[in-house]
């Protein structure tokens, strides 16, 4: 039976198991929007800006592991997706972005709402397609979903001209893909695994750095088995948070620019570094020439191009993290590293990173800690970018797999609200807290309307310090306290929320924090809390840009500090 391109597109999405599309209509897409109601399996969520659609699809994808789908019209609709696509690309998130395009006869004529979106997104997609023939549409969709979710996941863009949506063809959904240039390596090379085993078995001060690859691969159990059997301490990257329980005795927190001092000291001292599903980002490594100076490095990653890109590696193993760790675990001998782990414990005692100062002002760290306490850690935290993100990473303890969703590589302010929306759509039974700054929140604030229309019970905590906080912090440390363009006037967020139909509270004092969070949790729908926090608060520890990770700045007022409850040790 012949179908229109719009029908073929919908049928193909159904075949791929798509349940949700985050989108925004436009002229070029009207044939598709006219067809959508015939496919009740495809829930369409109307966002308020296409950037929101891309971030929501990204958040959905990260939280569920399924491919997130976003849809935008030609021209400005497509360009508005760009930040979200780049964000998904940098953090290896499986997203399929579908854009409308002007009719194929007008392409290249600077037609109304025409933009070369395949050209624009070429360096920020894993692959992209301009579909010029309705006969190839089903094949393109099949390939796109395959590419998005396999190997190193990433965003794929499909650009569909208006006439392709209208033209008719027979619908045959292909069973398999034929991509001769795309064969991701999944099994690690046995020789490399043997070499790695030898290094690990001989190591005296081994250390694991675990990244988001562990989460993508679902290798939680395998990582835990490796760490426990060989008694190897584990530190994570920002995006690796949630791949290893933070209350585990072998967990030593996050490394990098705002990582725990002891995590960075461990990197500085280790003799065998096992990097798993991470890519030696500069925010994680600091000055690369002095990173892990005493270590032989084992690098496990699915993307061969990451091997040796940023750092010299002694034993590369290319493949799927889970498959490789399973093989590695068969060969590892059980060992003890008592002195080494004791050393790390001592560093943790000497350089505590999770303490919160006792003071009159309302501290953002305190707010995060209380969200952890009230939710008992049973929540998915979605953050913005900047100070709020770092405090959320440091002061919430992540024991549940994949419980932190954050924009790492691109560092996209404005990610928080639409991503939290996507997470809540994908995980409706989970508690979802959106941790925002007053700056980033205003970049995608319009999605409050989407949240209301779609009845998404996202809980929003704004860390309102009346500044672009991280900018203010850098200006304080490195630019002679010249606060240029960092003080920020904001509207009354409580009134804004109420205008959108969202219940909201403002909190200015420490003792109001817990009751407010409890009220938000008990409330059935979305809820916003505007936490008016201490404006001059800085994120510590901090490794100055270009410095070695071990040379970090620590919080100056340690003496007045309040002892934080020690994380419970898991059995």
């Amino acid at each position, binding site marked *: 039976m012949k179908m229109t391109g719009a029908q073929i597109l919908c049928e193909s999405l159904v075949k791929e198991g798509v349940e949700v599309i985050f989108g925004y209509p436009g002229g070029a897409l009207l044939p598709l929007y006219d067809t959508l109601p015939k496919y009740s399996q495809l829930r369409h969520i109307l966002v308020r800006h296409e950037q929101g659609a891309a971030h929501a699809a990204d958040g959905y994808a990260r939280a569920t592991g399924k491919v997130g789908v976003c849809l935008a019209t030609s021209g400005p609709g497509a360009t508005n997706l760009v930040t979200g696509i780049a964000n998904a690309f940098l953090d290896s998130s499986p997203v399929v972005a579908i854009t409308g395009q002007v009719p194929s006869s007008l392409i290249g004529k600077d037609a109304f709402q025409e933009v070369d979106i395949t050209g624009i997104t070429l360096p920020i997609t894993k692959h992209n397609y301009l579909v010029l023939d309705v006969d190839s549409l089903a094949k393109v969709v099949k390939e796109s979903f395959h590419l998005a979710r396999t190997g190193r996941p990433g965003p794929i863009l499909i650009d569909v001209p208006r006439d392709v949506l209208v033209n008719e063809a027979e619908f045959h959904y292909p069973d398999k893909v034929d991509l001769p*240039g795309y064969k991701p390596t999944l099994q690690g090379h046995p020789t490399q695994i043997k070499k790695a085993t030898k290094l690990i078995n001989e190591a005296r001060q081994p250390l694991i750095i675990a990244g988001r690859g562990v989460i993508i691969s679902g290798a939680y159990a395998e990582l835990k088995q490796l760490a426990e059997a060989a008694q190897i301490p584990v530190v994570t990257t920002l995006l690796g948070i949630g791949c290893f329980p933070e209350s585990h005795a072998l967990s030593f927190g996050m490394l990098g620019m705002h990582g725990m001092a002891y995590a960075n000291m461990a990197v500085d001292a280790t003799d065998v570094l096992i990097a798993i599903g991470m890519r030696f980002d500069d925010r994680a490594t600091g000055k690369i020439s002095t990173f892990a100076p005493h270590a032989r490095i084992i690098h496990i990653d699915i993307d061969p*191009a990451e091997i040796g890109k940023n750092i010299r590696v002694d034993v590369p193993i290319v493949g799927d993290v889970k498959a490789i760790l399973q093989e590695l675990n068969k060969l590892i001998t059980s060992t003890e590293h008592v002195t080494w782990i004791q050393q790390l414990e001592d560093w943790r005692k000497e350089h505590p990173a999770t303490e919160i100062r006792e003071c009159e002002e309302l501290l953002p760290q305190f707010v995060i800690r209380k969200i952890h306490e009230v939710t008992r850690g049973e929540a998915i935290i979605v953050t913005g970018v900047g100070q709020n993100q770092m405090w959320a990473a440091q002061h919430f303890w992540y024991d549940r797999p994949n419980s932190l969703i954050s924009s790492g590589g691109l560092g996209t302010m404005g990610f928080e609200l639409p991503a939290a929306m996507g997470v809540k759509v994908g995980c409706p039974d989970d508690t979802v807290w959106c941790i925002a700054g007053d700056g980033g929140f205003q970049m995608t604030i319009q999605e409050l309307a989407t949240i209301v229309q779609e009845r998404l019970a996202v809980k929003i905590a704004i860390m309102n310090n009346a500044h672009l906080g991280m900018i203010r912090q850098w200006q304080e440390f490195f630019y002679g306290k010249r606060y240029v363009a960092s003080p920020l006037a904001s509207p009354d967020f409580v009134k804004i929320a109420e205008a959108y139909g969202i219940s909201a509270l403002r909190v200015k004092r420490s003792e109001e924090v817990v009751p407010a969070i409890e009220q938000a949790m008990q409330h059935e729908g979305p809820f916003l809390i505007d936490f008016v926090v201490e404006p001059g608060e800085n994120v510590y520890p901090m490794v100055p840009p270009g410095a070695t990770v071990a040379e970090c700045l620590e919080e100056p007022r340690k003496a007045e500090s309040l002892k934080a409850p020690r994380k419970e040790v898991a059995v």
Partner: protein
Amino acid sequence: MNTMKHVLVAVLEDKPGVLNRMASVFRRRGFNIESVNVIDTINVDNSELPNLTRVTIVLSGTKTTVDQLKKQLDKIVDVVKVSEFHA
């Protein structure tokens, strides 16, 4: 590190924009190319794949640089194979 002249041979699927994809890698990752030669529709020995294009790239660089370029090019979905040519 020894900077030497290297010759890379890439076999690509003859799809629209594939040269642009390669050029984009050269540009954004800062590889300095001395020459690029493109030959359309070649027959690779014993290959049943039709519509292939062969691109020969000459560049100067260290082994690390060339390895990295090779891997970045291989990552392009339409690139079937990249190998270094040794005279």
